[in-house]
């Protein structure tokens, strides 16, 4: 019996889908059988982030309504043979599926897969309730901004009310240069406020945009910094204790160069 994980955030645009795609791909890369579930009915995007948008025949709603078997709706990944995607329906609304139906679906998937990763829509309404319905654990994604952290706090409360305890936090799009200048909240600041367990820190990284353009999760890119952050997250999910990536750039030369750029940029 596998484990189901919901990736949620409250606020939109903080990187839920990217996180779900990368964690799922990362887990598959180390040999786990993984199913990604896009629970964002009506606004599906996990398919394009994974580069699988051209292969969709059936979707999640088809499965719960009994139009097809689960197996025929699952899309096999291009790169990894133990990675699958269950896409959301694009032409239906959130209330086309109920939390009870989601629970049954996720239970069924857990029999076949080591990990079932559910990408939750933004917001706290029906779509959120559906997405968390079958989850064993929750990952909350936030960015170092007041609005995103505030929404994350709200999500912690709502998860607790649904008896989903001990969510883990991913802080996305950290910018070391701004943290150093005191213009961005640090990991410690955010953990201090939210008081939940830290699962990972992902630096703001242009390679994420490039990899999303290509439909290739950055976790597959050995040289990508964000990819490394997601590989670390995957190992932590598997129970390994991996130190967090240093936010400060250690190299004095790099820091001097950056400082020089800052100063000359200002003049």
């Amino acid at each position, binding site marked *: 019996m596998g484990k189901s994980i919901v990736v949620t955030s409250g606020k939109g645009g903080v990187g839920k889908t990217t996180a779900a795609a990368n964690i799922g791909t990362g887990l598959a890369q180390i040999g786990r059988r993984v199913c990604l579930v896009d629970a964002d009915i009506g606004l599906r995007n996990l398919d394009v982030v994974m580069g699988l948008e051209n292969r969709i025949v059936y979707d999640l709603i088809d499965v719960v309504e009994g139009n097809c078997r689960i197996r025929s709706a699952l899309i096999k990944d291009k790169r990894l043979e133990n990675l699958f995607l269950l896409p959301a329906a694009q032409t239906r609304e959130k209330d086309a599926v109920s939390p009870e139906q989601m629970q049954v679906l996720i239970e069924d998937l857990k029999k076949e897969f080591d990990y079932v990763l559910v990408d939750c829509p933004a917001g706290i309404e029906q779509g959120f309730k559906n997405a968390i319905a079958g989850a064993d654990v929750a990952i909350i994604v936030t960015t170092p901004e007041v609005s995103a952290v505030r929404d994350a*706090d709200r999500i912690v409360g709502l998860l607790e009310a649904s008896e989903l305890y001990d969510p883990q936090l991913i802080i996305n799009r950290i910018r070391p240069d701004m943290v150093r200048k*005191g213009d961005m909240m640090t990991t410690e600041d955010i953990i201090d*406020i939210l008081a939940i367990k830290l699962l990972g820190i992902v630096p703001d990284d242009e390679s994420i945009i490039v990899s999303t353009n290509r439909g290739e999760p950055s976790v597959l890119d050995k040289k990508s910094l964000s990819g490394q952050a997601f590989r670390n997250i995957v190992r932590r999910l598997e129970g390994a204790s991996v130190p967090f990536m240093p936010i400060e750039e250690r190299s004095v030369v790099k820091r001097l160069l950056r*400082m020089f750029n800052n100063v000359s940029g200002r003049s």
Partner: protein
Amino acid sequence: MLEWLSRLFGATEQSKDKAKERLRLVLVHDRAVLSPGLLDALREEMIHVLSKYMEIDEKGLEVNLNRSDESVALVANIPVRRVKRKL
């Protein structure tokens, strides 16, 4: 030293402290939301405890969370009919 130098050149206020402070305040309010169910339970229990010491007007009892800028207070207005002499 480097930190000091960059401060010298940057010389701006740390906006992250502002962010953290605002966040802290807004969460004081966000977190102080009692669900109707919890509020009812609290009301019932208060009536139960208070009734040991005094006769209160249950219908006139009001329990609310009041929010001011920096804090949240539980405010109860409880009409008392008669105070008991002993337990």
